[in-house]
């Protein structure tokens, strides 16, 4: 699927036109339509998981899990609550969205929230993964023609400036997911059109001593394993580093061994990793070797856990290669996070540590990440912030 500039322009005009009808519908109507479309899409993703698996490089069980957990957040009550947060503002006439390919369901919030708030959306799908946005569009169309007309998908090669101009010309804001280079390049060409940037990011987790003692450790292991394995650790919300508070009763090595044996190993069967691309495999071999040379490495069939000191950070290539970092407590963990700055998107924390982690992030002059409990890092609620802003950032007239 590839569109030329005239086709992109025509679709942009049609989507813009549909905005009036979309806004004429009530908020309740829009929420009903979207909730129903989410249910429809979840069923279709279940039936089409093999095709989606081939398109995304994730295993079929992972595709089903991702679709179920993401679309499960599109509930009427959650949407109405979100709309309440943003009440009293005038929506922009149209949003254009440029999607990346690393997490296929990332498009859902980026499309559903504008539609809920009365903003029609034209989506430029990643050339590598256009299937899911098209499925979403088709689900919207089946539920209600007014909703369906308010969202469309185009595809063209990156760097096609004519198509890109056609994509953004009618938009009142442009939301871009992708590498920092992609975001910067598009920003430079947008002129006065506001940009909502979703550039590179990484996430980390923190487990305090209580998570290893008072809370049943099995829960901590299950939660962390899910956060690590979801989307094969390819996304901005995937924890790359897990800071572990070491005490005389709990060693990082003991925890790493249990994480591997009781968490990541079993999850290889229930949510298997997708095929490892050779390019990632080459990086994985280097990362694992360095981890083994510099610290401890526990290697499974399709995952690895390294134990390393906080500095220097050596980012893994993802794909279920995670680093445990022993620290003396939250103070040391936050100090270790600070150099990551605004690239840090999310901090998962055990439920006991979460309030303190939230307070520390709020007080930090250099960190803008949000905090959530481990086990939910990859399944943000509909109203979770994105890149330090409310999810509806950029969707209203200023």
């Amino acid at each position, binding site marked *: 699927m590839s569109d030329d500039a005239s086709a992109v322009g025509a679709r942009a005009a049609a989507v813009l036109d549909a905005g009036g009808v979309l806004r004429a519908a009530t908020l309740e109507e829009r929420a009903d339509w979207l909730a129903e479309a989410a249910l429809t899409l979840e069923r279709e993703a279940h039936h089409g998981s093999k095709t989606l698996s081939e398109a995304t490089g994730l295993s079929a069980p992972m595709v089903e899990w991702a679709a179920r957990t993401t679309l499960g957040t599109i509930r009427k009550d959650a949407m109405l609550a979100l709309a309440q947060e943003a009440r009293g503002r005038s929506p922009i006439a149209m949003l254009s969205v440029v999607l990346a390919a690393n997490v296929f369901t990332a498009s859902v919030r980026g499309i559903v929230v504008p539609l809920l708030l009365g903003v029609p959306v034209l989506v430029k799908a990643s050339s590598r993964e256009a299937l899911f946005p098209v499925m979403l569009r088709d689900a919207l169309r089946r539920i209600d023609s007014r909703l369906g007309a308010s969202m469309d998908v185009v595809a063209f090669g990156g760097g096609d400036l004519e198509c890109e101009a056609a994509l953004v010309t009618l938009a009142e804001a442009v939301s871009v997911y992708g590498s920092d280079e992609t975001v910067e390049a598009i920003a430079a060409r947008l002129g006065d059109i506001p940009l909502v940037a979703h550039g590179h990011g990484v996430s980390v987790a923190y487990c305090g001593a209580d998570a290893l003692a008072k809370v049943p450790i099995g829960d901590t292991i299950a939660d962390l394993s899910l956060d690590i394995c979801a989307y094969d650790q*390819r996304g901005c919300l995937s924890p*790359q580093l897990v800071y572990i508070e070491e005490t005389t009763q709990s060693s990082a090595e003991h925890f790493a061994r249990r994480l591997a044996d009781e968490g990541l190993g079993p999850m290889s069967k229930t949510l298997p990793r997708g095929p*490892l691309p050779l390019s990632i495999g*080459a990086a994985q071999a280097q990362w694992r070797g360095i981890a083994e040379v510099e610290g401890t490495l526990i290697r499974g069939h399709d995952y690895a856990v390294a134990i390393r000191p906080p500095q*220097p950070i050596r980012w893994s290539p*993802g794909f279920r290669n995670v680093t445990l970092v022993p620290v003396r407590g939250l103070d040391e963990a936050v100090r270790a996070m600070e*150099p990551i700055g605004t690239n840090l998107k999310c901090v998962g924390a055990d439920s006991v540590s979460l309030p303190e982690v939230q307070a520390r992030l709020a007080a930090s002059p250099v960190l803008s990440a949000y905090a959530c409990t481990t086990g939910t890092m990859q399944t943000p609620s509909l109203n979770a912030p994105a890149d330090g802003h409310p999810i509806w950032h950029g969707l209203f007239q200023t």
Partner: protein
Amino acid sequence: MSTRATLRGRIERLISSFEAGERVEAAARDQLIEDLAAWQATRISEYGRLQRHGAWPPALPTDVFRFRRIAAHPEVEDRRVFRSSGTTSSERSVHAYRDLGLYDFAARVAARHMLFPDVERMRLVILAPREDEAPDSSLEYMLARFAQWFGTECTWVWRHGALDLELLTEQLRSAEASEEPVAVLGTSFAFVHAEDGLGRQQFELQPGSRLMQTGGYKGRSREVDPEALLTAISTRYGVAAPWIINEFGATELSSQMYDTTLREAIDGSVGPRRLWVPPWMRATPVDPDTLQPVKGEAIGILRIDDTANLDSVCCIQTSDLAKRLDDGIVVLGRAPGATPRGCSLAADQALGAR
């Protein structure tokens, strides 16, 4: 119990046997790799920490050479230190040598077999800096040795960080007129600079002339598809494609591999272009998860066991993608790690954490 002296002797005998035209048994090489690795693991703590997977000793990732000194001898005994290109210290691999005897021996025998099998010496034109301009480059060191071992005369046409096009043209015209074959040796990016600078000039180098290119681009010139560059320089210099070969070397290695086409053209045989692996090396595409050899001609990541790496680590895991082809190896280039790495790579760069 192996000692450095006995291991060194065994490596030399392996290379000498090949030089003398004797058959080198893979089993002897494999046993030497095993013994070398065991000896190195006791002397290089970083290597000693790696766990064995499968039948072969573990392979040390090339990236480790960027972060740690990998040597079986103390720094005070370094005779020469080679560094890969790069702008910051963390981007540069460092390979320390206690002596260069094995390096020289392996380089000379391999080049004699694959690059100069038909001539004792010949005229050399080198598209690379002189050794004194880049004293920590293993490539420049090797080319300087080639000048000593194989050159009748040698002209270095890369000066003060740039290609001297006038001198290159003069040398090539002079070679055309002399009716004497010439070997033009250089980096791939230098050949691209020559392509960009020589305009419409073409040369008809004498039969027996040959070109050897090595290395990647590393941002030093525009990148050119290898097939397109081969065609372009074949036309430019008037040298048939089989007489244009790639050399594969790396800072972390002491031996080199060469394309087979020149040797086969001289021997009157024909085969697909592939890298010849010297019998004192083992080059194996491996599965990135298991690190075990892939089957048949499947693509894997290239592991190289180089017995000439006596004082560092013999078993090396590269990031190059490769596959077996006939009796050789085809290197498909460095894996482009950026694309599917999600959001991590740019943060990595932004933080300067590597």
